[in-house]
């Protein structure tokens, strides 16, 4: 059995990686060809969109297939300590890329608010720039920038659905920690109850956030086109919402695996990775709540 071997587990031939490459190529090429400058009608769309969706469907097939294979191999006892370490380090590098990803968007927000907008308004040594380029532009935030791109808009008040969503995510952090302790103590009921509550809270967050987006677009005129405020708002909250959705799906899989008895108090890396990811998503939201909604 490979589990007694000290070296790497060498997998059999597999079709998942090439399928993933095909999927990603279709998605990116399809998206690029749908952009307005590449498109005769000068709006987002065209035949490239079909390639994009086809790629997304193939990616979904690949993810389900590859993860199923890995789970089956793990349950069959084919992985040794070396493989366990590889998974942990793979996760660590993925996390690092995610942290950098959100750091870039938060960086953009701070740069826009504390540098670009003030400079365009003539702060610091940029008085001439303001006089020549955008006379009359004020250094305020929120702002849709000089030229009032996208027109007048209203913002989403922090003390409303955003505060409710913060409460939802914090509660889900408590429930996932409750589940984590249950797993560590060998209490299966606590593990499953905690995970189920976390998943339900996670999807509730997504529902409320989607509702807020609809409200923003239909009643507040707050869109991706609402100048620098609109773009930073939707890029930050949008990618965060996507990560919450992915995290909730991952936790659902972990929930099903927990129900099937896949984890023990000693061996449960997948659970810990998913739980950590969920904590990360919550921390990013706290950053959003404080810096995007409250404007600390």
């Amino acid at each position, binding site marked *: 059995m490979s589990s007694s071997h000290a070296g790497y587990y060498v997998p059999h031939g597999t079709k998942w990686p090439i399928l993933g490459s095909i999927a990603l190529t279709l998605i990116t090429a399809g998206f690029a060809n749908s952009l307005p400058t590449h498109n005769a009608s000068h709006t987002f769309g065209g035949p490239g969109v079909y390639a994009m969706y086809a790629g997304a469907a193939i990616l979904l097939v690949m993810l389900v297939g590859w993860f199923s294979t890995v789970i089956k191999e793990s349950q069959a006892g084919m992985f040794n300590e070396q493989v*366990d*370490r590889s998974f*942990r*380090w793979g*996760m*660590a590098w993925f*996390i690092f890329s995610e942290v950098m990803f959100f750091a870039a968007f938060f960086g953009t927000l701070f740069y826009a608010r504390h540098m670009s907008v003030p400079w365009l308004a003539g702060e610091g040594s940029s008085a001439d720039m303001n006089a020549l380029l955008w006379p009359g532009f*004020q250094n*305020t*935030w*929120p*702002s*849709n920038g000089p030229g*009032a791109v996208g027109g*007048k*808009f*209203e*913002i989403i*008040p*922090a*003390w409303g659905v955003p505060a409710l969503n*913060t*409460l939802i995510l*914090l509660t889900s*952090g*408590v429930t996932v*920690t409750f589940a*984590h*302790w249950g797993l*560590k103590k060998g209490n299966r009921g606590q593990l499953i109850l905690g995970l189920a509550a976390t998943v339900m809270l996670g999807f509730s967050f997504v529902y409320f956030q989607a509702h807020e987006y609809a409200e923003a677009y239909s009643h507040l005129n707050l869109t991706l086109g609402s*100048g620098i*405020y609109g773009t930073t708002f939707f890029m930050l909250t949008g990618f965060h919402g996507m990560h919450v959705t992915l995290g909730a799906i991952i936790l659902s899989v972990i929930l099903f695996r927990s129900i099937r008895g896949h984890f023990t108090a*000693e*061996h*449960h*890396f997948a659970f*810990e*990775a998913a*739980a*950590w990811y969920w*904590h*990360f998503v*919550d*921390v990013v939201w*706290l*950053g959003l*709540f*404080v810096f995007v*909604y*409250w*404007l*600390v």
Partner: protein
Amino acid sequence: MPFEFKVLVILVLLAIVASLGSGLFYLIRDGGQSERAVKALTIRISLSVILFALVLVGYATGYFSYPVAPGN
């Protein structure tokens, strides 16, 4: 928003990020064999609840408020 309050909020946020980071460190290093990761994450969620309470208290006491009108 009062400067001292801003500093306090940011300090708590940094502590939250630090506890999250330590959780990741223990997750990678301990391989599920100790309770250090789950303890770090328990600290993380506790600090987060404190942060939310801070924001609530600040808002309820009128110490600070969110903007209600756009700047345009």
